[in-house]
């Protein structure tokens, strides 16, 4: 529990891009999309198979913990890479 608290530094909001290793396979990529859709507050998901990245759009006024996102990626069988936060403006 302490470890989670240490890694979960700031909540995510707006648009974020996550690099994911092994996203080339469509069956797995869309499986990850299915998993991420289950997170409360996710408005839309863009899967980029060519670049191996996921664009997550979080609904206005909502926040999601980084750990929740990372856990969903791991649940789908992937290794999450860099998370890049983008301004929604």
């Amino acid at each position, binding site marked *: 529990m302490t470890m989670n608290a240490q890694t979960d530094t700031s909540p995510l909001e707006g648009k974020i891009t996550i690099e994911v290793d092994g996203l080339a*396979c*469509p*069956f*797995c990529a*869309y*499986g990850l*999309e*299915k998993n991420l*859709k289950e997170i409360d507050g996710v408005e839309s998901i863009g899967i980029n*198979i060519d670049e191996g990245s996921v664009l997550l759009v979080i609904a206005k006024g909502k926040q999601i913990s980084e750990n929740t996102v990372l856990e969903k990626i791991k649940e789908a069988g992937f290794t999450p890479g860099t998370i890049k936060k983008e301004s929604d403006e």
Partner: protein
Amino acid sequence: MNKFLMVLVFSLSLIACKEKEEDKKWTFKGKIELPEKVRPLALAKTGEDFWFSDPEQFRLLKIDISGKVLDSIVGIKRPMNIDFNEGKLYVPEFLTDSIWVFEDGKKFPLSLNAKPQAPAGLHVKGDTIAVADFYNHRVILQIKEQVTFIGKEGHNKGELYYPIDVKIKGEIIYVADAYNNRVQVFDFNGKVLNVIGEKDGFNVASAITFNKNNFAITDQENSRVLIYNLNGELQQILSENINYPTDVLFDENKLYITNFKENSITFYTLK
């Protein structure tokens, strides 16, 4: 004496024909170019034309042999390995755990007595339905409303790891056991009968098709298609003009292969 000679000549010509058939190899013939921004995932033949799923664009497109678009079905949330049988197009909708049937312009849900989690592929033959249940690591087999589950998550013989496609051949089921990099063969009771391709270097075995004497399997990540005889013995490896194959389809003397990473379908002929 004449009769004996006639029988001898007939027998020799039969042997020659058989040898000739066995000598034939699948050879690259051409590509069907598709519209831009298309990513063909799975193919089904409907008379002279094809339906293919394009999950990237949430749609299915019907094309003729030249690639000209004839019809479309839109708004399907990631359509995967489709099937066509007796005038019905079966479409697994990956994101909603649904399977849809399209017939004469109408859409209705497939009556399935078990809930798949991310259906990746299916095969319907009469009153027998087999579904590759991707996230449950099993096959749902429904025969006359009676459901049997085949396989469970794992890497041992008889276990499955993210199955993507399934084909019924007689009373036998062939499963593309994708992330175990093999095909497993089961009877209708779930007893494993054969394991194919384990030594052939597969990296994601994602689709299966049959003709009379052979079956073909896509080796997705290696951009290959492997041809086996019905005993599971490797006959030929195809790689020319194949780019990330996600489905394969025999049609008489032609073999069609979807190139998911480009907007085309490659076809081979038997020579």
